[in-house]
C-alpha cells in the first residue's frame, strides 16, 4: 500500500504526462507544442525523482528540458513567424495518425499487460549515490559504462561537427 502522498504524486505526474503529451501533439500553435513538451519532460523528471534516481532527474531537467527544449524553441522562433498557426488537420490524416497510435498502443499495451510480472510493486532500493554512479559510469567491470561513455563522446563530437557543417551557410 502506497502512501497517499505518493499516490497523489503519481496521479499528478501520470496525468501530466498523458495530458501534456497529447496536447503537445495536438495543439496547433507550434510554440505551445514546445511548451507542452517541456511540461512532459518535467513530469518525466518527476518520475525519475519518484524512482529515486535523482541524478537522472537532474540530468533530464538540465539536458532535456533545459537544453533541448531551448534549442527547439530557438529553432521555432527562427523558422516561423509569430502567430503562425497550423491549419486544421484533414480528418483523414488524423484518422491515420490515430490508427497508428492506437495500433501501437494496442499491441504494446497488450504485450505489456500480458506479463503478470509487470504488476510488481516498487521494491526497496538503497539510494543511488553519486559515487556509485560515477564508479559505474567510468568502470570497466560488469555494468561498467566506460566504453559507452567514450564512444558517445565521439558521437557527440561528430554531431557537433555535423551540426556545424550543415548549419554553415555556404
Amino acid at each position, binding site marked *: 500500500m*502506497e502512501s497517499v502522498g505518493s499516490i497523489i504524486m503519481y496521479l499528478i505526474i501520470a496525468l501530466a504526462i*498523458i495530458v501534456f503529451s497529447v496536447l503537445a*501533439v495536438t495543439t496547433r500553435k507550434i510554440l505551445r507544442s514546445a511548451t507542452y513538451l517541456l511540461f512532459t519532460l518535467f513530469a518525466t523528471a518527476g518520475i525519475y525523482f519518484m524512482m529515486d534516481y535523482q541524478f*537522472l532527474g537532474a540530468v533530464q531537467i538540465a539536458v532535456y528540458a533545459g537544453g533541448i527544449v531551448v534549442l527547439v524553441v530557438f*529553432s521555432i522562433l527562427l523558422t516561423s513567424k509569430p502567430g503562425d498557426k497550423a491549419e486544421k488537420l484533414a480528418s483523414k490524416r488524423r484518422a491515420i495518425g490515430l490508427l497508428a*497510435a492506437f495500433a501501437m498502443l494496442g499491441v504494446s499495451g497488450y504485450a505489456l499487460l500480458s506479463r503478470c510480472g509487470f504488476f*510488481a510493486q516498487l521494491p526497496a532500493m538503497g539510494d*543511488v549515490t553519486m559515487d556509485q554512479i560515477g564508479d559505474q559510469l567510468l568502470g570497466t567491470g560488469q555494468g561498467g559504462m566506460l566504453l559507452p561513455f567514450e564512444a558517445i563522446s565521439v558521437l557527440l563530437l561528430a554531431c557537433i561537427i555535423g551540426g556545424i557543417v550543415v548549419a554553415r551557410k555556404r
Partner: protein
Amino acid sequence: MDITLMYYLIPSLVMFCCGVYGFITRKNMIAILISLELMLNAVDINFVVFNRFLFPGQLEGMFFTLFAIAIAAAETALAIAIIINIFRVAKNIDVRDLTKMKF
C-alpha cells in the same frame, strides 16, 4: 492502491503513441521533432521504471537512459541544424513539401 510497474508503463506508452501520432499528423518539421522527443522520452521512462521496479540492484537501465538523453540531445541538435538548413533553401519547414523525390 498499489502503484505497480504497469502504472508507469502505460503513461509512458501513451506518451510514445502521442509521439507516433504527432509524427504522422504534424506538418511542421519541428513539431515532428517534438514528437520524436516524446517517443525517446517514453523509452527513457521505460528503462528507468523497469530498472527500478524489477532490477533495483543494478543501474543498467538508468545508464541507458542517461546515454539516451545524450543521444537525443545530439540528434536534436543535428536535426535542428538540418531543419534550419532546409528552411534557408525552401523558406518553409512544412514536411509535406518534402516530396520532391518519390516513387
